[in-house]
């Protein structure tokens, strides 16, 4: 089939391109690029017929042109890109309100058990929670980078042992597991006049036993 709109290859640039057109091309390329564009990339727009210095000069002019708009031309590690200005962020976020998703109770409890009891097997978690732990729960936490397998317990079946990761600490703004909320506060939740032997709560500073 004939494709009537196949563009004719543009003529050699240096002879025909005005500075305005050069900037229009640079602008369009930067506005449509998915990634920042390095000067070397941008030179391809003009069959490498323009020097890096010339392109840089145009970029500075573009930056100036966009100065008081809602977006700005910036230079980042891998090149140049347009990006929104921070003051507009609160407005833009109204378009896609990030309904903060929540983890289910099962996920949170599993995470808590791994955090406070690590390393634990799936069986340990099931024993503590009193219900079976679906592998999707562990997958969610592993995909988030919060837990990983650190070994296997030497019992029949060699179950995997899970522990929390450095990334988990980072995400929760903790410097170490010691900074996890102390669990003693939980005692208050427990029936005060219960005659059970004290529940064996884990104490963060109770280093050994």
């Amino acid at each position: 089939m004939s494709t009537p709109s196949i563009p004719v290859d543009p003529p050699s640039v240096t002879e025909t391109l005005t500075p305005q057109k050069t900037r229009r091309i640079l602008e369009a390329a930067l506005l449509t690029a998915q990634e920042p564009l390095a000067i070397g990339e941008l030179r391809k727009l003009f069959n490498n017929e323009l020097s890096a210095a010339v392109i840089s000069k145009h970029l500075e002019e573009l930056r100036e042109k966009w100065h008081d708009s809602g977006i700005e031309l910036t230079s980042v590690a891998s090149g140049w890109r347009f990006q929104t200005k921070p003051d507009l962020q609160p407005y833009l976020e109204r378009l896609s309100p990030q309904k903060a998703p929540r983890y289910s109770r099962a996920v949170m409890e599993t995470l808590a058990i791994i955090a406070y009891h690590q390393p634990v097997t799936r069986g340990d978690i099931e024993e503590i929670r009193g219900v079976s732990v679906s592998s999707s729960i562990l997958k969610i936490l592993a995909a988030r980078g919060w837990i990983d397998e650190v070994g296997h317990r030497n019992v029949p079946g060699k179950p995997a042992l899970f522990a929390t990761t450095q990334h988990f600490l980072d995400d929760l703004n903790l410097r170490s597991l010691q900074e996890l909320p102390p669990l003693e506060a939980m005692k208050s939740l427990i029936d005060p006049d219960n005659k059970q032997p004290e529940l064996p709560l884990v104490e963060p500073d109770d280093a050994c036993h």
Partner: protein
Amino acid sequence: MNDNQAIDAIAAQPIARICGEPLLEIPQDLYIPPDALEVFLDTFQGPLDLLLYLIRKHNLNILDIPMAELTQQYMAYVKMMRIDQLELAAEYLLMTALLIEIKSRMLLPVSPKADSGDERDPRAELVRRLLEYEQMKKAAERLNELPQAERDFSVVQVWIGQKAAVALPDVHLDDLRTAWAAILARAKMNRHHQIKRDALSLRAYMSQVLRELQDREQIEFYRLFSATATVAEVVVTFLAILELAKELLLTISQSQDGTIYVHAIDTGRSA
């Protein structure tokens, strides 16, 4: 390739035989040398397209198709196709059959029945299809002329300054605390259940030791102690190793030369 270019190129070949048989009268732009068959097939979208081309090329009134001639020409094409493209020829053969059927019906006297349905010209259905196809063929050309995203223009998409990362649930320490509380509340009702009385920091070191063992089968005992470790850390690490051994998470052995090794439990990576 443009249709007409293709046809013209084909027509330019001065070959006067089809399947070894001389063609008495070669329709100027109809004859296709066997070598060009693939080009030919690429040029036409199918039997309707070919028929349409023949009709257009001969400037025939679409309702006045000389069936005999058309069928003959059509057959010439199909004959060529059958040489090595039998499968492709099938659709064209079907069209030939249709043409012959129409031709034969036109030879029959018009039915005396005045029924409107039977009275129809046998060519009518073919004409309807040809026109409908031609209309779509033209529409496709028009569609192709419309500016198309990516081909003729690009959609602008600027980087959002602080792109909110993939929305992952936020978890806060309070959430962990709450989760733990829920577990404990249940544990209370579930007496026989024993929560191990483990020290958190000891547990952390246990994880650390296991991590070190992950990539190797075994490690010299001393390597598990960081050179910069404080006394307390050394003690806890040591306790962690003992605890791990107790919980059957690792084994410790000593070689002839006195080196102590800590071994990961061989799992064979069972599920």
